[in-house]
């Protein structure tokens, strides 16, 4: 197949795929969907961002997100505690959904990124790269850290009316995870990854 041709994933138009030498996003000429992007030093950038995300994600899971003081009593909530509290309130399915979208999927997203980026950065192709790349696409659909951060901001006001609210370390950590995941999203390009892996796959 002519490598200079591509098709749009959203409108199926066959078109030329221009090569880029500096940072660029190539869009479909009919429907403007993003076809692919080119970022110089993609592997270094994406790997650095992913490692930072991994560290902050661990912090976000260890410390409480916020705490509330009322009548001399102190209650704090961790990310995991959120899912547990929902399950304990009899809403197991909602608790599971919160656990999956807030802990499991973001965790798997970070692991899948590391699994792909580390070997590629050091010159080899990861095993079962096709499978992991496809899983990463599905995982990202259900990883909703940024939505949680909005929810946390919304809750600050409501909780502040009830008692004395304090933001805890995990709040800032998860907010940073949100920013870093968004940054990874703006550089990540599976087409570039596959070009790098070409010839190195057994």
């Amino acid at each position, binding site marked *: 197949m002519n490598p200079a*041709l591509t098709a749009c994933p959203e409108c*199926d138009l*066959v078109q030329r795929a221009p090569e880029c030498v500096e940072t660029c996003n190539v869009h479909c000429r009919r429907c403007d969907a993003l076809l692919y992007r080119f970022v110089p030093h993609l592997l270094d950038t994406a790997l650095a961002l992913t490692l930072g995300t991994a560290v902050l994600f661990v912090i976000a899971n260890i410390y409480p997100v916020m705490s509330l003081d*009322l*009548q001399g*009593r102190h209650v704090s909530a961790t990310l995991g505690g959120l899912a547990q509290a929902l399950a304990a309130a009899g809403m197991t399915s*909602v608790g599971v959904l919160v656990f999956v979208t807030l802990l499991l999927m973001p965790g798997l997203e970070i692991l899948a990124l590391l699994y792909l980026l580390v070997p590629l950065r050091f010159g080899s192709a990861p095993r079962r790269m*096709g499978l992991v790349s496809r899983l990463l696409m599905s995982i990202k659909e259900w990883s909703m850290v940024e939505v949680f951060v909005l929810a946390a901001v919304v809750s600050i006001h409501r909780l502040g009316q009830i008692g004395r609210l304090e933001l805890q370390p995990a709040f800032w950590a998860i907010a940073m995870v949100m920013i870093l995941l968004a940054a990874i999203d703006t550089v990540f390009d599976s087409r570039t990854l*596959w070009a790098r892996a070409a010839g190195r796959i057994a």
Partner: protein
Amino acid sequence: MSAMAARAGLLLCEVCGLLNRRGRPRPGRLSCARCGNTLHARKPDSFARTWALLITAYVLYIPANILPVLETRSLTDSTHDTILGGAIRLWSQGAWPLSVIIVIASFGVPLAKLFVLTYLLATVQSGSTRNALRQTQLYRVVDFIGRWSMVDLYVGGLLVSLVQFPPFATVTIGPAAVAFAGVVVLTIMASRSFDPRLLWDADTRRATRAVQNG
């Protein structure tokens, strides 16, 4: 006329971006020459899957809005709020920015998703697609905003975990949360199972008919 990959016997791999040639027709699935993932010219059973998910989401949308979603107890009173009821209460307390966020994220977004996907499916299937570009843009908006409906469930989770001061203040979550979670999950799945390329297929068919009819 512009060339659609499917008509030219080409298949784009959505995972690695390689444009594959269909090759000789043979039974079984086609897989990408580079990454090995299954290739589809169009998402499989897009109409049937999207309709099934949409209809189920419509049904669940009703209990999600009728049943109470939050139950607040304090020394003096106990309140059961539906999604909209909670937003109205916030508005009356002067917290209108929050009220607006809740109304948009929890009431407006799911409804907009349901209506837009219904509209897109109906126009493609009835062959009345007029402007594929505008409809694709509409689809993109719907696909992007879907996840933001989760806001209310996370807020619920935070309130339930933190507001546990019996008898002064306790919050528990009501049965609407389960229905609402269902609506969120189903509409996200519905928007993923819809294939915007169907809009362009319908557009191409209409253009071809127009040419033939002179």
